[in-house]
């Protein structure tokens, strides 16, 4: 049985009122949907955050939702955690329907938010004990569990500290402990490593691997390719509210267009130089988008100098060059026409 199943899940936010209102409600569509064009069936000004999402997450799976800001990741998590109402379609989490059985869904999930939002009026251990109490768990059960979690996450020495005395990484660990205190079936993490320094990120990865090894179902959103690649069993690539690809990281990488991606920004329109560049030895594929030229090469960076030559012969100069090895990133670029960040 699947831990999560969504069918034709769709979310349309109403058009924002004319004078811009700030500080909206729950997981806000915010920047995430602003760049999304109105999809099929949406009237003017409405924001289509999710077009029609069909997903299945298996029991015990580490599932990644990968996409740029505005892809609909946070909206998806919002719906699956009962904080956002879908416009249409259905979603079942842990056997309960998010729309009609939200209380049962909440009982089966743990959520780690994008930005740590601990209860700052309580200390660290109180945060865990009260959260357990909100799930009907008596202190005699939650106290040893909380101690064990703090130990496991390396913040046992902070048990009686004020939350504000913790670093960002420590607060994020507290959020993980809080998400686990009621022993949920499914754990959701929304961009858990954004804003953390590289070392803290690595130790968080270690914690997530451990949780996965314990057999938990984990759903994580991220816009870091590397993170999705290293941690997830399967990855769904989403963009503009649509599912583009869904497979294991290995299979996705094999599907990436061959070769290294050489991206050049030119001084002028890139379209006229396509034919000349395509003729260069080692060039597999060429794409142009405004002044941006994308060259897929099977000789790595060695095509750079003949390509520059071909470009300049057409009276255009090269302002900037970047190289990307074949990866989820090159797959993403070839499927969406843009980079992740």
């Amino acid at each position, binding site marked *: 049985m699947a831990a999560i199943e969504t069918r034709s899940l769709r979310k349309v936010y109403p058009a924002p009122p004319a004078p811009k209102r700030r500080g909206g409600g*729950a997981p806000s569509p915010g920047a995430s949907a602003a760049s999304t064009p109105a999809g099929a069936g949406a009237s003017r000004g409405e924001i289509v955050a999710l077009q029609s999402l069909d997903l299945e997450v298996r029991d015990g799976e580490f599932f990644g939702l990968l996409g740029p800001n505005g892809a609909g990741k946070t909206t998806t998590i919002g719906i699956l955690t009962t904080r956002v109402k879908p416009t249409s379609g259905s979603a079942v989490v842990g056997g309960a329907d998010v729309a009609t059985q939200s209380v049962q869904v909440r009982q089966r999930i743990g959520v780690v938010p994008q*930005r740590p939002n601990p209860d700052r*009026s309580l200390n660290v251990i109180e945060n865990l004990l009260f959260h357990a109490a909100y799930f009907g768990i008596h202190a005699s059960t939650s106290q040893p569990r909380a101690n064990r979690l703090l130990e496991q996450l390396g913040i046992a020495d902070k048990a009686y500290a004020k939350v504000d005395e913790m670093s960002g990484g420590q607060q994020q660990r507290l959020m993980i402990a809080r998400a686990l205190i009621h022993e949920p079936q499914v754990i959701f993490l929304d961009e858990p490593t954004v804003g953390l320094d590289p070392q803290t990120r690595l130790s968080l990865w270690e914690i997530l691997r451990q949780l996965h090894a314990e057999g938990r179902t984990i759903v994580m959103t991220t816009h870091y390719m590397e993170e999705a690649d290293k941690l997830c069993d399967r990855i769904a690539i989403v963009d503009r509210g649509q599912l583009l690809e869904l497979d294991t990281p290995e299979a996705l990488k094999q599907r990436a267009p061959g070769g290294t991606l050489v991206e050049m920004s030119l001084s002028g329109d890139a379209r006229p130089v396509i034919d000349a560049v395509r003729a260069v030895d080692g060039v597999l594929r060429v794409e142009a988008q405004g002044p941006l030229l994308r060259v897929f090469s099977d000789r790595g960076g060695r095509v750079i100098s003949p390509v520059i030559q071909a470009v300049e012969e057409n009276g255009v100069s090269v302002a900037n060059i970047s190289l990307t090895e074949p990866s989820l990133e090159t797959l993403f670029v070839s499927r969406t026409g843009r980079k992740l960040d």
Partner: protein
Amino acid sequence: MSATAALPHPVRASSVFLALLRRDVRVARKEIVFFLVRTTMQPLLFVIVFGYLLPKMNFVGRGYQTALLPGILAVSLSLSAIQSVALPMVQDFGWTKEIEDRLLAPVPTRLIAAEKIVAGMLQGVIAAAFVLPIARLVMGPISGFTFSHVGELIAIVVLGSMAFSSLGMWLGTAIAPQQIGLMFSVIIAPMLFFGCAYYPWRGLDAVPVMKYLVLVNPMVYVAEGMRGALTPDMPHMPLPIVGVALVVVAAFFWTLGMRSFYKRAIG
């Protein structure tokens, strides 16, 4: 870990409600001094000026204190009930998002709002209970003051604090954080001054237009209800009318507050 595994026991809503309430009590206890200063400073200053200084100067008669004390208690109750709910709501939904952990509790979202309103009611009652002995001390013996109508008093206190705590829920979830200052000057201040707290409603017989205009102000019913219960010999609005009005007002703000909270909680 399996989704097919035995489902967890359903959680009893009452035990979650109590846990939420315990959390608010714990937090309120930590901040009790700030809370009392914030919510009772204004009524206590009024007590000193209008209940002590002016009578001493013979600008107002001794009878004025009898009219003032129930009004002061009404203000303490209402003002602290509003603030205890509105301010945390503005913060929680506006920027800290701290309430998210409670919104994930496995109970209907409206129960979480209801708990907040009940917590606000308790804080209103505590503020009024704190002000009463101090006011009595500052003003000296108050003629006609009695605790003999306990039933009426409890009814007024419960309905009044519920009306204003619910109003706080509505304001706190409907108003943008930047406008919180405006809320005090545009809504709260007129409510206090035209709420028959510092003068009895029957005194407005002298200004008939005002006498009927102020009836839209829910504070009037709390103040007059307090008079009816605590100083029954003073002229006051009949208690049955006060009771009906407070039931209507409390139900109205409760509905608005619940709806507004739900809208903010679920996108």
